[in-house]
């Protein structure tokens, strides 16, 4: 049985901050996890020599070798099931599904096997695995390479769903996801890969299921996920110039979801706008709104709770149409302004 060689490195905190891109932060988390625990290994299509379709695992093959950075044939169901079987018997696999759209090919293994094993067997097994996958539009890849399918997985008991929006968060949350003893769907966004931000050196984790206030404000609570967090923060800057102060909250983990900070915020602001890229109907935003209005924040609301989300349309190829299909900064500015001014 392989063993972890932590926890010496785990408790070590390093304060040195560097600017890293999101993709570098993901890679650093993978490297640290593999250094800390021999049971952690990567598998997926083109993760080895190629370095991953988006370059996430670049250099890891040279450092850890082909057994732990394992290139696979194009067999999404097979590799997902392989990860689950390995996780059930003592390993801690990290699978990469090259585009979130391709997760459709893994669904049976993920939803009917990985998510349910522990419960169906009365708690007798653990399935400690992470399935990383890039989601989202904005790259001109059209309808079969641009999906945002997080809501599907939020609906499956037994799975955890994480959707980080910054380099700092993606590193700490990925390390936490790898330490977690459950199957975690870890959703990265293609447009975030090249964004930069401060990232501490060394091993640190950000606990799953902790929503975070990304910017404080008093006039409106904006709940945003993934790439919509940076758009909401841009909108906040523009609105501040008009004297409107919005509070931006990123749930970061969608399942299990930490609703308390959002409730607290709305009690303060009295207004809420929920923003995500995935299509509006059946999207995660509905859950955010439902939990908000069903709880103690209801009595403090002084405006309808609104959602801003993707259109109910497959992502189109044409650049202008693709842009129209999902919310952008100006849409958030418009909606936020309308809510704050009572002009909805």
């Amino acid at each position, binding site marked *: 049985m392989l063993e972890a060689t932590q926890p010496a490195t785990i408790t070590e905190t390093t304060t040195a901050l560097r600017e890293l891109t999101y993709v570098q932060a993901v890679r650093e988390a993978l490297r640290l996890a593999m250094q800390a625990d021999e049971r952690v290994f990567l598998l997926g299509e083109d993760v080895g020599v190629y370095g991953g379709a988006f370059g996430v695992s670049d250099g890891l093959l040279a450092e850890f070798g082909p057994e732990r950075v394992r290139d696979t044939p194009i067999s999404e169901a097979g590799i*997902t099931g392989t990860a689950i079987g390995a996780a059930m018997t003592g390993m801690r696999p990290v699978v990469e599904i090259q585009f979130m759209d391709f997760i459709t090919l893994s669904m049976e293994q993920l939803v009917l096997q990985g998510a349910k*094993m522990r*419960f169906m*067997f009365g708690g*007798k097994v653990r*399935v400690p695995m992470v399935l990383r996958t890039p989601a989202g539009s904005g790259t001109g890849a059209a309808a079969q390479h641009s999906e945002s399918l997080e809501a599907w997985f939020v609906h499956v008991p037994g799975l955890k769903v994480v959707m980080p929006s910054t380099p700092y968060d993606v590193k700490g949350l990925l390390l936490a996801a790898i330490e977690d*003893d459950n199957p975690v769907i870890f959703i990265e966004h293609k447009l975030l890969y090249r964004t930069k931000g401060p990232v501490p050196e060394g091993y640190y984790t950000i606990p799953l299921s902790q929503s975070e206030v990304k910017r404080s404000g008093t006039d409106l609570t904006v709940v945003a996920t993934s790439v919509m967090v940076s758009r909401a923060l841009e909108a906040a800057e523009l609105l501040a110039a008009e004297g409107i102060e919005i509070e931006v909250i990123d749930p970061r983990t969608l399942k299990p979801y930490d609703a308390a900070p959002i409730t607290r915020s709305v009690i303060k602001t009295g207004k809420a706008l929920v923003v995500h890229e995935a299509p509006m109907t059946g999207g995660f935003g509905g859950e955010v709104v439902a939990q908000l209005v069903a709880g103690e924040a209801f009595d403090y609301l002084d405006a309808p709770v609104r959602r801003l989300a993707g259109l109910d349309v497959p992502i189109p190829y044409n650049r202008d149409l693709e842009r129209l299909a999902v919310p952008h900064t100006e849409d958030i500015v418009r909606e936020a302004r309308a809510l704050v001014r009572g002009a909805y």
Partner: protein
Amino acid sequence: MLYTALEKMYLIRAFEEQAEALYALGKIHGTMHLSIGQEASAVGACLALRPDDYILSTHRGHAHCIAKGADPKLMMAEFLGKAVGYCRGRGGSMHIADVEGGNLGANGIVAGGLPLSTGVGLSLQMQRSVRVCLAFFGDGAANEGAFHEALNLAAIWNLPVVYVCENNQYAMSMPVAKAFPIAQISQRASAYNMPGVTIDGNDLVAVYEATRAAVERAASGLGPSLIEALTYRWRGHSKSDRQLYRSRDEVKEWQQRDPILRLRASLVQAELFSETALDQVKEQTYRGIEAALRFAEAAEGPDPASIMDDVYA
């Protein structure tokens, strides 16, 4: 060893006859899939394993579970949905797992266990273990995409997995002759460059010998094998099956090849045991299942307050 094998086969037959009787009495919530007539493939294959080897089972999994060494009392308790059952009443007939005993579970999805078994094989290989994983599946599973992906991955990585196809002639109502363009499912092994054999799945010794060879191969790092065990389920697919797709004569013909009677006959013929001694084995196992039933019926159901337990670790 053959004596133990006969004992296990009787235990399986007795368990399933009891299960069927309970169902007829309306005591069972849900359905079940019986493998009466297929006992030799389960027992012969598991006889070739060590206690700490793994198996993955199927929806027709009672036989695999008993063959791998499970306690019929805890199986019966699970079948009746009791808290003391193998899965604390969460799994039932279709998901009985005996994780400590190396059975990683019956599976409600046809071919669902095959990618998992490849993962178990990878896990064992990466841990430099000499243990192996044996995956049971049916003829129907061999036409799922997961079968091909799982066998291909195991073959390219040389994993210690033994794939045992229990070809019981029908995927629910679909006969193998209509579902496959090939005469033998084991021919598919050649596509993955692994050994493939078709054997008489109702011949316990034949199943044991083929599995033994495949297990030795896997354990010595030579990679996976595919075994097709030809057998027949005497009962319908599940309790709703009116069996419109096959004739009574066909069922009767296969019942002449009862794997239990065949093993008995060979034991008597070889003058290893007397008929009386073997009758006693049968009687003991049936009594054991009656005791298991009493145990299970007396056991308590799960605490309603525990319903959310174990969704997450």
